[in-house]
Structures are given as C-alpha cells and as structure tokens.
C-alpha cells in the first residue's frame, strides 16, 4: 500500500465533497487510482475526458505512483 495525496477541483470537488484527502491505496497507476476513487466517491466523469497531474506536472494515466505523490485529476478546463 502507498499513501497518495489527492486534490479535487471544480466539478470533481463537488462530486467528491472534499478538496483533498490522503489515500492509502494499492493502485499501481494514476488511472487505477482514479477508477478506485470514482467508485468510492461516485465521481461521474469519464477518465478519457480528463487529464492528470502528478506532483504539479502534467502526466498520463499510466504514470506509476509512488508513496508521497500528489495527484490531481483535471476535468475539462474552461479558462479565458
């Protein structure tokens, strides 16, 4: 098991009902972590419509997680 810091923004924050959490997980990749949390919190956003950031840099869903990583799921953006 590893300990991952997860932050939620925008629609995902609304759906998860929290801004952040420390997650103990067996997920090997960022994608597996999202799938696990989607079930736990009822996150109803398709993964392929989103991006993911690991330690404040864009990454991909296959990114291997390490204990202490900070993960942010990025819903479709709407700046400007």
């Amino acid at each position, binding site marked *: 098991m590893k300990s991952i810091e997860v932050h939620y*923004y925008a629609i995902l924050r609304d759906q998860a009902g929290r801004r952040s959490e420390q997650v103990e997980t067996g997920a090997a990749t960022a994608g597996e972590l999202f799938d696990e949390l989607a079930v736990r919190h009822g996150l109803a956003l398709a993964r392929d419509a989103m991006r993911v950031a690991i330690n404040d840099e864009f990454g991909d869903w296959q990114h291997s997680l390490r204990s202490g990583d900070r993960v942010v799921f990025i819903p479709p953006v709407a700046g400007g």
Partner: protein
Amino acid sequence: MPAFSLSAEPFSPEALRVELADPACGGYASFEGWVRNHNEGRRVLRLEYEAYEALALKEGERIVAEALERFGVRRIACVHRVGGLAIGELAVWVGVSAAHRDEAFAACRYVIDEVKQRLPIWKKEHYPEGDSGWVNCERCAQPSAHAHGHDHVHPEPLELEFSSLTAARAAGYELVDVRERWERDADPPGLRITRHLPLSEYMNGRSRLDDLNDGGRYLIVCAHGVRSLALTEELRAHGHAAVYSLRGGLAALRA
C-alpha cells in the same frame, strides 16, 4: 512581476501595459476577455473561476515563453482572474509589445488561445433559475451525475462553439466530418478528421449513423455549419440525443 499571474482581485490593465513599454517596440496588442451574460443558449448571472494554482502558473509561464520564442516579440504579460466575477468584469488580459504589429497580434492571439485550452482553470456559471454548472464538464458527466438537485430538463443546444478541433476533442466530443470527399482533399495535412461520413452517403441510406447512439457525444462538422446543423436536427428528431453541430463549421475555426 512574473509574465503570467493569477489575480483574486479586479486589476487594471493600464499599470500592466506600462510595464510592457520598450523603446525598441513600435506596436502593442492586447486582448481582454470579459464575463458574458449568456452561454450556450442560457442566461448567465455570474461566474466563479477556480484554478489549480501551482500548475496553472507553470503552464502560463510556458505559454508565454513559447509565444516569445515563436513570434520574436519583445515582452508579454498575462493575468487571469480567479474567484467570483460579475457580468462585464475583466476575466483575462493579455498584452504584447513588439517591434512590429504583425507579431504582436499573432503572439497575443496565441497566448489567449493556449490559455483557454491548456490552463487548469475551471469556470462555474450561475443561472437565473438558481442552478449552476461547470463549463465543458457537465456534458462529460455520466447521466447519474446530474447534481443540480432538481428535475427540470435543460434544453440541449443544437450548436456548440469551439475555438479549435482540439478543444472539442478535449471536451469529450468525437468529431464526424460530413463534408464530401473533394472538400477534404483540399484540407491542410494537420486537419484530417478521422471519422468521415459524406452527407450525400447518409442521404442515400440512413443506417450508417445508427452507432451514434452508443452513449458517446458527437460533434458534426462541415465547412460552414449549415449542413451539420441540418443533419443534427435530423438526427435529434430520430432520437439521437448526444449529437451537436459545430457552429460556423471549419471556416469559423480558420477565421
């Protein structure tokens, strides 16, 4: 002052403009994005912007650096608001100074387009009916995620506006090009839309679009948005709920 910043408070572009002044510059171009009172057919009362600040600042600086390098302009600054904004308020500002106007306009356009597509910033709209929605997100949510807490039906717009095909794909739409073959032959190499179904073929036998009811969201694309709108209306009438027409067609993207 960093080239890109986020501001939780209203700001004045005038002070920022002065920072871009340079004796070697003969031109200055700027863009202001304002909060609009409507979006996708609904009235909007106010907005909230939320940013993933650490990554937004990095990505904003990267966009500015790319524009400096690509267009050879002298100085660039960009500020994006976060927090609650009223109609008419300044939401984003880009300023560019350069030796000549051409590169100033081009760099300014590049920065605002990339900012809209790449920055991890989200926009929540508040509507007169009392509900609210995250722009570009609500349609990506699965049906169970309709979290407004009431049961009215939102009128689904037939047409959607996007700044680029990339933005449409990023918002979760699969593109369907309904132009004829000869029209596609004239496309620049980068433009090719994989899924191609000429309207003439659809008219000959309408079974070909049945799989557009598979739960995905489809954006119908043609040259000027006329044929795609007609086909979208036709498909909606036949029970395809999640099809939309690209407003203005490909011509609107190239303008």
